């Protein structure tokens, strides 16, 4: 699956990553996996939302190999 990160997450990860789905059933699993890949990002990741096809999904959303997943840090627009 394709994973895109934004804003301060780009200090910890590549902007766009291709990840294999081994051990990643749902959206929550993906956050855990990313935290393992870079523990420094854990505090931010805990506060992120996940979007699939520009729609926010809950932690138990089942991820698909063909999904493009966006990790959305807390909004700070305006």
């Amino acid at each position: 699956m394709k994973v895109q990160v934004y804003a301060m997450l780009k200090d910890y990860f590549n902007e766009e990553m291709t990840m294999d789905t081994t051990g990643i059933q749902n959206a929550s699993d993906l956050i855990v996996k990313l935290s393992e890949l870079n523990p420094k990002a854990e505090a931010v990741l805990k506060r992120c939302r996940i979007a699939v096809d520009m729609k926010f999904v809950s932690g138990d959303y089942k991820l698909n190999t063909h999904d493009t997943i966006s990790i959305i840090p807390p909004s700070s627009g305006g």
Partner: protein
Amino acid sequence: MTPSASFPLPVAVDFKLIVTEPIDVCGLLQWAHHPKAGGIVLFSGEVRNHHAQKKVTHLEYEAFVPMAEQMIREITQAAIEKWNLHSAICVHRIGKLDICESAVVVVTAHSHRKESYEANQYIIDRVKHEAPIWKREFYEDGTSFWGGDCHCG
């Protein structure tokens, strides 16, 4: 101001809602005029020269553009339906912004002013808290800070 030749649909379907150039604040106000609207409210969120005792030199905004545009459109539409607005629009700028420049502008038009104020605040509150847009502040001392970051990573 004089009225536009044709009056707008309540929601601005043809506008770019995330822009990289300075926001045309007066143009948005002009667009929002409506013969049934007695009260028009415009909010402009502008870059301040200070934040938490630090001197800000400029900001940079980043967005997940297609999703941010879609969410701003949905939030604006929700306000139009909730308050029965004659028109409403929200435009957010991204990229580098200097002090006093508008980062976001919201315009709402209703027959009465109370509803225009309420709807305007509703739109900016939701856009700030929900849309995938991020601010990075740059300070005079050379440091920078992502809005929404928790300083605990």
